[in-house]
């Protein structure tokens, strides 16, 4: 042991009290400043999303905020107190220029891009969250059962996921979204299609971990105590692999946010309400206007970018913090 180890709380020779994996991981996570900053960003997104969902802000996104012109430029790009002729603007005119609704300009209908971006979080985050939960709800039990039971059950589940993973992911998602669109309303088709097609990686991961765990002493002990199979899987093994689910969740979430953008481009996304995907797609026509309209693209891209960045970095830090094998490296 080197001398630098003594000042870290993790390496004291005799811990006063045992720490759980989670506490331990949290202590390690907290030391990563960038990761902590990213966690705050995620928190901010969650807070904004909660406010938007409650209807307090941006519920009036479909109301035009300007009547004079389409595609009003973002207010901050021309924070001026005088107009082109050099006449000083009245306070009222200045205020209008920096009204929050106009910070990111307006779209073709004069709707506030800021409000649309905020409101877009509803669909984008709903799709990503429900698709993630759905794929976890399918992947984890399947993986746990396959790994623990083995035999024919294992073979069937492995066959199922090998088959699904042989079909190109995007075609599979498209085919599902395409077919489900007829039966399920609105965005339900989108997240169901994403959820039911992307549990394979997680299932494979959990199966592998459960295979490792099932021969460990604590499982044998639980068996001796007479615990049922379902109890062993749910109460003993799954908690021991749950950190993998959490790490996987953060990266999965990012993937779904990006998938929504592409599905929207293909016309399989939400129709009536704005999402970050539909906003980015509107830029296809906006950019070719003269002068080109870039603010809606910028706002939606920034919304996707910062959330993805935060989740990616925090997810990586979380994986490192939760990996007991890396303890001595960091």
């Amino acid at each position, binding site marked *: 042991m080197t001398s630098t180890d003594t000042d870290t709380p993790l390496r004291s020779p005799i811990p006063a009290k045992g720490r759980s994996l989670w506490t331990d991981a949290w202590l390690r996570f907290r030391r990563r400043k960038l990761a902590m900053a990213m966690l705050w960003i995620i928190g901010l997104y969650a807070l904004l999303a909660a406010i938007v969902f409650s209807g307090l802000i941006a519920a009036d996104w479909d109301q035009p905020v300007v009547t004079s012109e389409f595609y009003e430029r973002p207010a901050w790009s021309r924070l001026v107190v005088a107009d082109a002729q050099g006449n000083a603007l009245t306070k009222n005119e200045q205020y209008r220029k920096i009204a929050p609704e106009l910070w990111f300009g307006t779209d073709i209908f004069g709707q506030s891009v800021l409000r649309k971006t905020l409101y877009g979080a509803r669909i984008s985050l709903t799709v990503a969250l429900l698709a993630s939960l759905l794929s976890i709800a399918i992947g984890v039990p399947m993986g746990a059962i396959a790994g623990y039971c083995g035999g024919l059950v294992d073979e069937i589940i492995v*066959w*199922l996921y*090998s*088959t*699904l993973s*042989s*079909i*190109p992911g*995007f*075609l*599979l998602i*498209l*085919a*599902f979204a*395409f*077919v*489900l669109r*007829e*039966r399920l309303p609105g965005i339900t088709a989108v997240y169901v299609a994403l959820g039911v097609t992307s549990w394979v990686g997680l299932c494979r991961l959990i199966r592998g971990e459960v295979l490792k765990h099932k021969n460990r002493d604590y499982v044998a002990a639980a068996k001796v105590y007479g615990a049922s199979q379902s109890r062993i899987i749910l109460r003993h093994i799954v908690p021991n692999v749950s950190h993998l689910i959490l790490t996987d969740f953060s990266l999965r979430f*990012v993937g779904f946010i*990006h998938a929504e*953008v*592409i599905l929207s*481009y*293909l*016309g*399989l996304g939400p129709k009536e309400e704005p999402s970050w995907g539909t906003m*980015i*797609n509107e*830029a*296809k026509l906006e*950019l*070719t206007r003269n002068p*080109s309209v870039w603010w809606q*693209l910028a706002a939606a*891209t920034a919304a*996707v*970018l*910062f959330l*993805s*960045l935060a989740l*990616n*970095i925090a997810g*990586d830090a979380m994986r490192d913090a939760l990996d007991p094998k890396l303890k001595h490296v960091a």
Partner: protein
Amino acid sequence: MWAYIVRRLLYTIPIVFGVLLITFILFNVVPGGSQASEMAGKAASAENIAEIKKEYGWDKPLLINLNAVGEHGILAAFDSQFFHHFKNAASFNFKRSHKTRENILDMLIRGAPYSLALTVPMFLLTLSIAVCIALTVAFARGTAWDVGIVFLCVFGMSLPYLAYILLGQYFFAFKLGWFPITSHDHRWLGLVLPILIGVTAGVGGDVRFYRTVMLDEMNADYVRTAYAKGVTTPRALFVHVLKNAMIPVITRVVLAIPFLFLGSLLLERFFGIPGLGDMTISAINGRDFPVISAMTFIISILFVLGNLATDICYSIVDPRITLS
């Protein structure tokens, strides 16, 4: 070795069967009869619909044709949608596209070269750039260089793919005019910008993947031995480490190859490249079920074969792997 290959080949049978089953459920069972009336159009008569149903075999029962058994004997039981789906796919006898009335196999053969002309250079460039960056970054792990590059990679992965295409096309083709906006009239020049965009968008994820792979090898004893006997750093990296990191690299490469045929859905559409990706999007927009179904099946089969090839490559590259 041969026994292994044969066993591995046999193992692909249930997978191919599964792919057939899933495409069948997706494209025949779930949409039901609705696709025939949809294909016939709004002003179609009942005869038109019946005709289409007959051409695509949708007038038959789904799994087993019990009605026909009485008339035509026991073999007629297989005169059902599923067995026709199976038979047609196995003999690569795909139906005609209902939009263009063209044979789907011909369409695929026509589109594949365009897709490959886009995806193969894109893939090779991304791969070589990513492996080189990953090696140097892994070598300098923990330094500002490493942290900076990894951050850039994550940043690159966090930007939506569509934003890359929109901005790339806007700035370099539309605004600056360095490249043609679509590849219609300039066959090769038109491919340069989509390839560059694809490489830029894809390199981040690859660097991160290969960096992890290289890091696992970097601390191995053989690397220290190599340095100890006086091997230069580039040689240690590119000969010793790279060779040992080959297994995950090969897996990724071989498994990516089938998807090269698929082309790039978005890039092809934006740059007007008439490849398979573009064809898929047209099929989706035109609700052309037979085309999507055939695409899905063919790429899946290529993927299964790619998987097989990977396992065989392992045994060639890494003699430590014994095929038991």
